[in-house]
Each structure stands twice: as structure tokens, then as C-alpha cells.
């Protein structure tokens, strides 16, 4: 009987380690961003809706904002779009969009057809700024605080529920809601 104690002990230990591992990966399949708690990447990009203008991320300093990376080629982005329009109505925090590796005419048509929830949309046609943000699959949505620190990253299609459970608790209450 004695000779079973050691293997059984090892098995129990292994099961415990694996159980902890599974418990501690709450969002399976997504990869934690090393950007959390760090300064959001600074960038200057053309404005999608007005190619004569450029958008500088430095202009957002002092404000909370939600940074949403999308593209018309991305199925999840179509899925989340109505939620973004919904969220836009619920909060004062501006939605800043970044159109990732897209064709401008298609992106503009998308906004005309589906509605535009964004305060401004920057066009990252070459995908260089997306790399700085560590984007690996649209849609991805970041929350950035007034000091320009990335507070949170949400991977996958946004939902009103995700907004209420993941974003609102991280925001000052008076800002989270519409004034």
C-alpha cells in the first residue's frame, strides 16, 4: 500500500497546479497586454473622415478615452458596432476609433451605413501604429486615463455588458454616465 502514496501525492500536486493554472486564466485564449499600466503609444495619423486633417494622440492628454481598433474586413467589428453606438449614448467618455489596414472608401461607407460612434477615427493604413499598441486581432478596445496610461484592454467584440462590467468600474462615476 505504501508504494502508492508517493505517486498519488505527485498526482494530487500536479492536479492542484493545473487547477490553479486554469482558474487563473480568466480570459482564456486572449493574451494579457504588456501595455497595461504603461503610457499609451503616441501617434499622429490622418483623420479618416477628413484627409486634410491629422489626428495627434497627444491632443487627448487630460481626458479619459476609449481607443477602439477596427476594420471593415473584420467580422467581429461588424458584430460590436451596434454596441459601440449604444455605449456612445451611455457615456461622456469619447470613443476614438482607429481604422486598421483598411481601404478609406470602404471604411467611410461603413460609417455612413452603420452609424459613426466615434469622436474621431484615425486611419492606420500601414498598420504601424497598431503594432505599437500590440494589436494582434481586431476588434481590440483600450481604456486610457487622463495621464495617458493604458488602464485596460478588452479583446474581441465589445458588448454593452462588457462596457458596464469592465470599463465603467474603472472610470470616475461622474464620467462613466452621460451628464
Amino acid at each position, binding site marked *: 500500500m505504501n508504494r502508492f502514496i508517493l505517486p498519488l501525492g505527485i498526482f494530487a500536486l500536479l492536479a492542484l497546479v493545473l487547477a490553479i493554472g486554469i482558474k487563473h486564466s480568466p480570459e482564456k485564449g486572449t*493574451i*494579457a*497586454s*504588456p*501595455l497595461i499600466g504603461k503610457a499609451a503609444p503616441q501617434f499622429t495619423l490622418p483623420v479618416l473622415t477628413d484627409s486634410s486633417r491629422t489626428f495627434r494622440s497627444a491632443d487627448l492628454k487630460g481626458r479619459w478615452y476609449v481607443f477602439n481598433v477596427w476594420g471593415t474586413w473584420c467580422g467581429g467589428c461588424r458584430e460590436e458596432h451596434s454596441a459601440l453606438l449604444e455605449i456612445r449614448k451611455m457615456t461622456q467618455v469619447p470613443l476614438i476609433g482607429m481604422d486598421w*489596414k483598411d481601404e478609406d472608401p470602404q471604411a467611410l461607407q461603413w460609417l455612413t451605413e452603420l452609424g459613426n460612434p466615434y469622436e474621431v477615427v484615425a486611419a492606420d493604413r*500601414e*498598420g*504601424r501604429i*497598431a*503594432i*505599437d*499598441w*500590440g*494589436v*494582434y*486581432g481586431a476588434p481590440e478596445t483600450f481604456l486610457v486615463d487622463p495621464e495617458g496610461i493604458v488602464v485596460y484592454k478588452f479583446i474581441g467584440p465589445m458588448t454593452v455588458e462588457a462596457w458596464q462590467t469592465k470599463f465603467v468600474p474603472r472610470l470616475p462615476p461622474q464620467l462613466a454616465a452621460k451628464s
Partner: protein
Amino acid sequence: MRPFALVAVLAGVLVASGPAYAVDPTEMPTPELQQRYHVLTHELRCMQCQNEAIADSPVSLAADLRRQVQEMLIAGKSDDDVRNYMVARYGDFILFRPRVSTRTLWLWLAPGVLLLIGAAVAVRVTKQRAALVDQDKEPVEEDARSS
């Protein structure tokens, strides 16, 4: 007929395997850079497909990351500069060979520890077996037949 069929099959294989090496046609200015580019693009993970290196992946993000590696190498950055750049944006996960850190130490030590445990068990079992044979007065064959 036979040779024709053979040629047809070979041609088919050639056509089908085309995309496999056409994923990354990048050519670096010197053989030394080409070699470093080759190594780096094979040790960086395609975050979208996750089990492929950016060198082997046809997705657009992998192409963007290859372009980044190419540009950084041509600009004179070191291999570690490139690795650090990628890790700062995508995390340790982008490296197929995780770096040794306090977080990944157990990952690096585990195979050695497991090997030691396995060796200890093997030694013990072998010794026990040897002891059994020593005690046994009957020939080994005899023993095998009767059991």
C-alpha cells in the same frame, strides 16, 4: 502514358507547394542580415495564428511584423533590440523561446527536474529487479514460464 502521369503529378506537387515558400520573399541587402532576419522571423510568434512563426504565416499582421524586423535590422538594430521591441508590445508570448526570468524560471527548470525524478525512479526499479534476480535460485527462463 506512365511518364506523362508522373510529370502531371510532379507538376501538381510543384504548383501546390508554391505558396509554402512564397509566404516571405523578403531579400535582405547582405547574407549576414538575411541570416539574422531568417532566425528572428522564425523565433517570433504570429500572434494571430499562435502556433506559427511570422516567417511562415500569410496573415497581414505577420507581414507587418516581418517588415518591422526587416526595417530594424537594416537600420542597424541588434537582434535583442528587435526582441525587446516585440516583447514590449506583445509580451513574452511572442517569443517561441521564452526568456529566463523569475516568471518563466520554473518552465526552464521543469524538464531537468522531471528528468532527475525519472532517473531516480529508473535507478530504484533497476536495483530492485537486480536484487530479485540475485535472490532467485531458479533460472530466469524457468521463472518466466511458470509465472
